[in-house]
């Protein structure tokens, strides 16, 4: 039997915002499906908010863990965007007035108010993604997991998603994002977990993880463009710090390099 995940040890603290990265088939989606109990561990245990997922029904975990799938079409089904968003709330037994309020909030946060009575299937790919996100946000789970939220999104849409992740984080939620988008991960997360062939090969701050060339290579990742530039530069100029992620950070170093007597 081939293990998709093998000896994974991971703890995520309340309020953390982490990105999980790794090659195609590394086990990222498999891993996150364990968090809401859709999958149960073959060996070992998964504890979420104190609940042992092997002993807890998915329906209970689902109240606390929202999972937004990679392909929104895998979770959309209702006749209108409004109904889609209201569904979980109604299932959990919330009274009508609360459902209305939450649906309004979710529609506005995801900029979908004008589509409230539209069928989700008539919307564009990016818009359907937003509907899927809205339907999860509406019931306010403590933990929100996003599987590849930025695929197919243009730059401005990605910034909006980053803002939403920030907003959720400020609300005290724990955010887990599976992503291939290196630049997005580098800019928006304080902790990056790199999974490769079922095991964690790196876990730490972006500047540390993205300059760990071995781990990056194993997981078929590339460093963010700025870090890659720093790494190349460092081959000629040892004073360059490879743990650089920002444009400004590298700019300052290069200015010092070309004008060593200039104080920036």
């Amino acid at each position, binding site marked *: 039997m081939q293990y998709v995940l093998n000896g994974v040890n991971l703890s995520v603290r309340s309020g953390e915002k982490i990105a999980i990265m790794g090659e195609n088939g590394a086990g990222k989606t498999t891993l996150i499906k364990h968090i809401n109990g859709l999958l149960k561990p073959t060996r070992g245990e998964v504890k979420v908010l104190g609940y042992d997922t092997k002993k807890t029904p998915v329906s209970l975990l689902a109240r606390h863990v929202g999972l937004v799938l990679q392909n929104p079409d895998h979770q959309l089904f209702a006749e209108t965007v409004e109904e889609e968003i209201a569904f979980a709330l109604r299932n959990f037994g919330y009274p009508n007035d609360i459902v209305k309020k939450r649906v309004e909030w979710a529609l506005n946060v995801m900029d979908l108010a004008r589509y409230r009575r539209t069928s989700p299937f008539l919307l564009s790919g990016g818009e359907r993604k937003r509907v899927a996100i809205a339907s999860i946000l509406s019931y306010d789970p403590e933990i929100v997991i996003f599987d590849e939220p930025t695929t197919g999104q243009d730059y401005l849409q990605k910034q909006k998603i980053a803002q939403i992740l920030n907003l959720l984080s400020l609300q005290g939620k724990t955010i887990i994002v599976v992503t291939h988008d290196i630049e997005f991960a580098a800019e928006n997360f304080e902790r990056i977990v790199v999974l490769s062939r079922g095991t964690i090969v790196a876990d730490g701050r972006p500047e540390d993880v993205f300059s760990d060339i071995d781990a990056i290579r194993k997981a078929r990742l590339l460093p963010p463009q700025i870090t890659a530039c720093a790494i190349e530069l460092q081959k000629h100029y040892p004073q360059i710090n490879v743990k650089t992620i920002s*444009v400004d950070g590298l700019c300052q170093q290069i200015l010092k390099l070309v004008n060593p007597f200039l104080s920036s």
Partner: protein
Amino acid sequence: MSVIEVEDFSFKYEGSDFWAVKNINFKLEEGELVLITGPSGCGKSTLCRAFNGLIPHFYSGEYRGSVRVLGHEVKETPTYELARFVSMVFQNPENQLFASTVEREIAFGLENLGLSRDEIRERLEEVLEIIGIRDLRKRAPFELSGGQQQKVAIASVIAMRPKILIMDEPTANLDPVSALEVFQLLLKLRRELSMTIIVVEHRLELISSFVDRIIVMNSGQIVLDGSPRQILVLPEVQRIGIGVPKIVLLCKRLREKGVNIPSLPLTPEEFAEEVNRYRTRQSY
């Protein structure tokens, strides 16, 4: 004869109030590797559909102007004829995968072209090797991860050896190294099979150094058209809301501070070379 000739092309989807693309004029020559980019809704997918005939044969609406692909007027040519030389890889691989095994998926198009068993087998092996999915050959496509599915979709299209290959966000689900491999593959296809290739992408960091030409669209129109080094530095690109590669932002920032790097680098290696050259010039 240009491979694709678009003249005053406009299209409005049925039931829509606005033009998805307006007065498009452009030509594509054989062997070009072109990137089309622009914010969501700018018309890039619409334009791609106009090349393989999905517009107007599958998507109806108001069609104006002319789109000629290898001399064929698209609105007068059935899609099965166009399919002989134009192939498209969709954004969501699930929309094109259907077979019970990866092998069957790849063979399907080839069978439809009427190729011999030997030819099919040869192309199958070649494509599995090139894309690096030999170990997936007997697997069911719907069981694979998103990224693996994307590789299978790309493989099945490349096996057809189309003259014109259109890829709509082909690396959306791929890990970065796989994305790089796909782009390197495009160079190979262009070189060995004289393919003309159109790539639609939002993430420009990796693709920019591979393409000859970048076409920027906004609100249904082509607003910029030129080489990557010409286009990416223009302020309009950021203003339109396109994610300019960080390396370009870095060079712009350095220029602001008086460090003028004359030739815009598009890869980290080129960047290091340029900085080196700058320092060498400095010491004179």
